């Protein structure tokens, strides 16, 4: 999706002059009410019910989307290209199929918080369900035993 870069109108100029540090910026995605950091255009929408298994298994478009999304949203802990540096789990070794889906979804949605430590942030509310399954599709595609 292209990003609409506009010249500032007068209202922007005043807003800029009045802007004080740390006022959170309005999420911007031109023409889109609910901005998504993972663009899943082209994948069949899933809706509100959480799937138990990957509806995009083996889907080439999902794998492509997931590869990019993983690199930007996940690689900073799980490692570039799925190759862990030893601190976070190496997702290449996550089981394929339904078994791996069951292990993948709960931490991705809810995060992992144990004994006062955030081991993984939660992505529900940040990445859509479609985006999460696209990432799962890519992880499956780099599976190793």
């Amino acid at each position, binding site marked *: 999706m292209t990003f609409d870069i506009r010249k500032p109108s007068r209202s*922007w100029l005043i807003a800029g002059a009045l802007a004080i540090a740390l006022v959170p910026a309005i999420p911007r995605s031109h023409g889109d009410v609910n901005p998504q950091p993972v663009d899943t255009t082209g994948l069949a929408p899933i809706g509100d019910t959480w799937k138990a298994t990957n509806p995009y298994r083996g889907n080439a478009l999902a794998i492509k989307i997931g590869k990019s999304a993983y690199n930007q949203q996940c690689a900073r802990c799980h490692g570039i290209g799925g190759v862990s540096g030893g601190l976070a789990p190496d997702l290449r070794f996550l089981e394929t199929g339904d078994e791996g889906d069951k292990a993948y979804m709960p931490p991705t949605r809810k995060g992992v918080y144990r004994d006062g430590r955030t081991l993984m942030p939660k992505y529900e509310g940040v990445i859509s369900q479609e985006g999460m399954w696209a990432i799962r599709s890519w992880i499956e595609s780099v599976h190793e035993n």
Partner: protein
Amino acid sequence: MPNLLLGKMRVLPWLAACGGLALAMPASGQGVTDADILNEAKATKHVVGYGNGPHQHRFSTLDKINTKTVKSVVPAWTFSFGGEKQRGQQAQPVVFNGRIFTTASYSRLFAVDVKTGEKLWEYNHRLPEGILPCCDVINRGAALFGNLAIFGTLDGMVVALDQATGKVVWKQTLGDYAAGVSITHFPIIAKGKVLVAIAGSEFGVVGTITAMDALTGKVVWVRPTIEGWTGTKDGKDNGMTGKLNATWPGDMWKNGGGCAWNGGVYDPEANLSYWGVGNAAPWNSWYRPGDNLYANSVIAVDVDTGKIVWHYQHVPNDSWDYDSISENIPFDFKGKDGKTTKAIGNFHKNGFYYVNDRKTGKLLLAEPFVKNITWASKIDLATGRPVETGNRPGDPAKGGGEGGKGTTVWTIPNFLGGKNWNPVAYSDDTKLWYVPANEWGMDIWNEPVTFKKGAAFLGAGFIIRPVFPDYIGSLKAVDPTTGKVVWEARNKGVLWGGVLATHGGLVFTGTPEGYLKAFDAKTGAELWKYQTGSGITGSPITWEQDGEQWVAVVSGWGGAVPLWGGEVAKSHANITQGGSLWAFRLPKK
């Protein structure tokens, strides 16, 4: 001219009008004073700030441990952080009044008896579930002032504790952790104020530097680092940073990044503080044509007024995540013409060593300190701007990459940098810089991206690779006048810890393989090493007690490198995590 002080505007909504949460009486005038901080470089019995003196030369006048005696150095004691919490340990400890203090992973602070290594007290900051540090749950240390120990937390707070009791005296919140704000750097004390910058550019967080009264936490001034945002002083408008839309298009400045996440340096003579401003957000520069001030710049901020006095931008319109966060070290620069200028030296992520006049910011020298830089052929001394080679990842709108991506380029250095956060030392004896450098590169490409609070805001993909088959790290001794490398000591893994130089003719630094090492400052010969059991990414210190010289460092592998993994993971496989503070000495006679 519009009224800039409308009542509806919330200035930093999470700052209470009374200046944060004060839980105990402010400390009295005892303890660490402004004079202690100013005179630190010559004082050997304590270490109260970052870098052994406001100029942060990381040079000690102690010499009982020297090139002849260092081979006999042994551990005196070791202290374990425990608590089922490991991950990266990147602190520089501090020593005062019989206690040694260090922060640890997950926003912890320990006070330990400096002679025996026994724990005095421990503070575990209660972190919420949703913290978003980009690059490990680390902390780089606590500053001492008065009776307080002050540090920043992973949920964007600053906490001050009583040195003797470990009780919280005040707390202040500087940003919204759910948006990606965290604090990791060692705070700077200047004239009774504590100066702290937030982190979070990878989430589009806009950088701020906040000055608080060090004894009470009351906010004095806030300076945003990105053009278009307005600072405050004593709760009132304190002028816009830059000029709206001068170098940022549309509303891109609103999520422009520019966090000065590695802190600043206080220059008492000039009454200035020099801050290294991080990358512009998103990494995809095609969304934000223009220089993007003051991202990727050094800014000089007046300690009293909170205004930017001068700036120098290292990387206009950054497309490589070449944060300008390296420390800006005041020193006397002797030019090739023999003239001496009060300058700052900076070993940048982008592979260049910069020298700037610290009164004006004017560029005096820029030379590569790593090999095979690809993104610029040189830095033009007349204009101060890089001469780029066209080595930018391509615009996705123009295609060139597979579906939706722009063209990929191979770039040296990569986004982890020719040097990262870990600080250099400058020896007042050899007059050389000692630089913990890394030689590596990346394939990088750009992709479309949308901002959403709490999500990473990059618009880029990358693969990082070493440049040479047998090493990444290189400890380099660099001539400050010419930028020439006088010697180097290579390391298989990266160098990700700070450096210390001493009058004993030694240079100390730690390695991911677990060794604290001492090198001959003149020749680079390795004279001593000690295996601490986990990778060292902390900054060593040295001080004197009971007439003897001691050295301390934290050990515990983690940080950005084992998190980003990828191709460089191989060079760091089999390094186990840890979490401990080590103290070394010469054997008792």
